[in-house]
C-alpha cells in the first residue's frame, strides 16, 4: 500500500496548465444533467496520442492511454465512444493543437467532443499533454500536462478523465474510487478491494475465517469489517496504508454491520451485549459513545446503519413492525420514521451521496430486487428485474452508479448499473462468489 501512495505522490508532481481554460463559462447549464434518466450520451473521440520521438514505447503508451481513457469514459455511462475506424483524420500524424485540427472532419463522424494529446518518453520518464475540444464550437475546453513514469500512464488517464468529468458534471466523478466486497475464492470469505471499474482486484484481509460487511472510512484510508477471527462476529478496523488491524468490539455477543459516520472517525454498528440487537456509536478505538437506537424488545433487531451524507440521519433495518423494514432516525431528535411499507423483507439501506435517495434490497415475487426510494418516503422504484437475487446496493461516490450483488448467472457476482437501473453489467468475476459491495469516495 505504501508503495502505491509513494508512486502517486511521485507522479503527480506536476500538473501544469498549459493554456488557461477560457472559453467555457462554468455555468450549470453546461453540465451534463445526471438526474435525467433519458440522458443523451455525449459522443467523444479519443484518438492515439502523438508520439514525439516515434519510439515503440511511446506508440505503446499512446495506445494504452487512448484505450484506458475510452474505457473509463464509457464506464461512466455519460459518453458514447466513437470507433477509431471511423476517424477521417489522425491527429497523431496531422497535429494535436487547435490550428491543426479540422473540426469539420470530426463533426462529420458525429462526435461532439475530441481528445488529442502528445507523449514524450525519455529514460522511462514521460511527459503527456492532453487536450479536450468542443468540436461544434471548435474550441479548447481543457488542457493539461502530466509528468511521471511509464507505469503511471493509467493514473494520467484517470486524472485527465476526471478533468473531463469535472467539466461536464461539475463533480469529481469516480475514477479515483474503489470497491470493497466479500469473496470466497480462497476457501474463506475475505474482503477484496478493486478499482472503480473492477480492475486490479486485491485481497485486503487474510483472516481465514468468515469476513464480510466492509465499510470505507470517509477518506478511504480505513476499512471496518466484521470477522469471525476470534470465533464470533466482531468488528475490526484495518488501516490500509499501515496494515494495522484493531478489534473494536471487545464485548460479548454478536457485533456486526459497521458504518462510518460521514466526516468523522466514529463507527456505528449493531451490538447484542445488552439485550436486543441495537445500533451503537463507537470510536474507532472501540469506545462506546452511546446507543443510537432505543431498546424496544429483548428480541428486537436494529441493524445495517447507513448515514445521510451530512451525518444527521441514519437509515437502518429493524423488525420492530414484525418484518425487516427500513427506518430513518434523526440523530438529534431521536425521532424514527418507517420508510418502506411494500413487501415483507426490505434490508441493506444505502443512502445516496446527494442525500436525496435511499437504495435497498427488497423481496418482490420471491426474489430480492434493488429498489430506490426518496429519503423522505414515497413510492419505491424497482431497478432490477428477472431471475436471480439482487442485493446489497452501494452508490458510487458521485451518485451516478449503483453496485450490487446478483445471482442472475448462478454464482453471486458484483454488478454495476446506472442510478436509474440502466446499463447493468458485471463488474468482475473472481473465483468463488462475490457479495456485499461497498463503494469508497475518491481517494487521490
Amino acid at each position, binding site marked *: 500500500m505504501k508503495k502505491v501512495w509513494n508512486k502517486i505522490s511521485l507522479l503527480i508532481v506536476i500538473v501544469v496548465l498549459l493554456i488557461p481554460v477560457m472559453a467555457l463559462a462554468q455555468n450549470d447549464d453546461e453540465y451534463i444533467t445526471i438526474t435525467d434518466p433519458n440522458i443523451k450520451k455525449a459522443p467523444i473521440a479519443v484518438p492515439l496520442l502523438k508520439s514525439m520521438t516515434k519510439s515503440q514505447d511511446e506508440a505503446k503508451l499512446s495506445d494504452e492511454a487512448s484505450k484506458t481513457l475510452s474505457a473509463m469514459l464509457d464506464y461512466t455511462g455519460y459518453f458514447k465512444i466513437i470507433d477509431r475506424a471511423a476517424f477521417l483524420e489522425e491527429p497523431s500524424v496531422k497535429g494535436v493543437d487547435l490550428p491543426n485540427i479540422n473540426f469539420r472532419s470530426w463533426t462529420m463522424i458525429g462526435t461532439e467532443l475530441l481528445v488529442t494529446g502528445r507523449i514524450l518518453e525519455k529514460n522511462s520518464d514521460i511527459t503527456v499533454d492532453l487536450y479536450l475540444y468542443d468540436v461544434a464550437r471548435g474550441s479548447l475546453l481543457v488542457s493539461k500536462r502530466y509528468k511521471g513514469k511509464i507505469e503511471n500512464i493509467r493514473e494520467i488517464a484517470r486524472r485527465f478523465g476526471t478533468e473531463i468529468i469535472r467539466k461536464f458534471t461539475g463533480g469529481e466523478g469516480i475514477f479515483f474510487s474503489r470497491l470493497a466486497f466479500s469473496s*470466497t475464492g480462497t*476457501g474463506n470469505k475475505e474482503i477484496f478491494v478493486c478499482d472503480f471499474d473492477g480492475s486490479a482486484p486485491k485481497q485486503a484481509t487474510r483472516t481465514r475465517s468468515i469476513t*464480510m460487511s466492509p465499510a470505507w472510512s470517509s477518506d478511504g484510508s480505513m476499512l471496518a469489517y466484521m470477522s469471525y477471527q476470534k470465533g464470533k*462476529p466482531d468488528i475490526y478496523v484495518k488501516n490500509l496504508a499501515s496494515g494495522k488491524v484493531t478489534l473494536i468490539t471487545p464485548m460479548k455477543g*454478536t457485533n*456486526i454491520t459497521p458504518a462510518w459516520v460521514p466526516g468523522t472517525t466514529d463507527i456505528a454498528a449493531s451490538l*447484542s451485549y445488552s439485550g436486543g440487537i441495537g445500533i451503537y456509536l463507537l470510536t474507532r478505538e472501540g469506545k462506546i459513545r452511546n446507543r443510537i437506537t432505543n431498546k424496544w424488545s429483548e428480541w428486537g433487531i436494529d441493524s445495517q446503519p447507513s448515514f445521510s451524507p451530512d451525518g444527521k440521519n441514519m437509515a437502518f433495518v429493524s423488525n420492530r413492525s414484525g418484518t425487516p423494514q427500513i427506518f430513518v432516525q434523526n440523530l438529534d431528535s431521536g425521532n424514527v420514521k418507517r420508510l418502506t411499507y411494500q413487501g415483507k423483507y426490505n434490508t441493506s439501506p444505502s443512502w445516496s451521496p446527494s442525500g436525496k435517495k435511499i437504495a435497498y434490497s427488497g423481496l418482490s415475487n420471491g426474489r430480492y430486487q434493488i429498489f430506490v426510494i426518496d429519503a423522505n418516503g414515497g413510492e419505491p422504484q424497482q431497478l432490477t428485474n428477472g431471475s436471480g437475487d439482487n442485493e446489497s446496493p452501494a452508490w458510487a461516490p458521485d451518485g451516478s452508479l449503483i453496485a450490487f450483488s446478483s445471482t442472475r448467472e448462478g454464482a453471486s457476482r458484483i454488478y454495476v448499473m446506472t442510478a436509474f437501473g440502466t446499463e447493468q453489467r458485471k463488474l468482475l468475476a473472481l473465483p*468463488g462468489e462475490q457479495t*456485499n459491495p461497498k463503494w469508497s469516495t475518491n481517494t487521490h
Partner: protein
Amino acid sequence: MKRSVSIKICMVCVIMSLMLVVSCGKKKVETAPAAAADTATDTKPADDAANAATDTEKVEDTAVMAADDNAGKKETAGAAAVAETVGVSDIYFDYDSSDILSSETAALEAKAQWLKANPNVKTTIEGHCDERGTSEYNLALGDRRAARAKSFLEKLGISGSRMETVSYGEEKPAVPDHNEDAWSKNRRAHFADK
C-alpha cells in the same frame, strides 16, 4: 468433538431402531446433511458434510421413519429417550422468525432435563439461518434464535453461565441445497455440547 457427536448419533439411531421408537421429526434433520454432502458447494464450509459422510446409510433409515410419522414430532417420550443418550442437538424455526415454535418446546424441555442430569456439560448454542434473505441481517436473526433458545432453557432452570451463544447467520448451512426442505433444516439453533 464433532466426531464423538456423530458416533453418538449413530448409536442413537441404532437404539431407536431396536426399540422401534418412532423418531421425532427433529432427529432426521440432524443427520440429514450426509444425504446432500456431495453437493456441498465451494462457497460453504464442508466440515459438517465431511464428518457426516460416514452416517449416510443410517440417515436414510431415519429419514424414512420420520417421513412415515409427523405425529412423532410432538412425542415427548421419544425426545426424552434421545435426551438421555446425547441430549437434543437442534431445534428449528420458522422463516424470518426467532420465536420458539410449540413443536420445539418438547425438545428444549428434554435438553433442559439432560443438562440437569449432566451438570458438568456446557453448551454453545449456535444460531443459524437459511440462505434466503440478507446475509448481514441473518447474522442478527441467528443471534436472536440462539438467544431465545438460551432464555428458554434458563427459564427451565439451566444456569446461563453454562450456555454461550454464537450466530453463524446463513454462513454454515447444515444442508447445502437450495429448496424448502434444506431451508427448514438450516433454520436452527444447534447445541454444541462440551
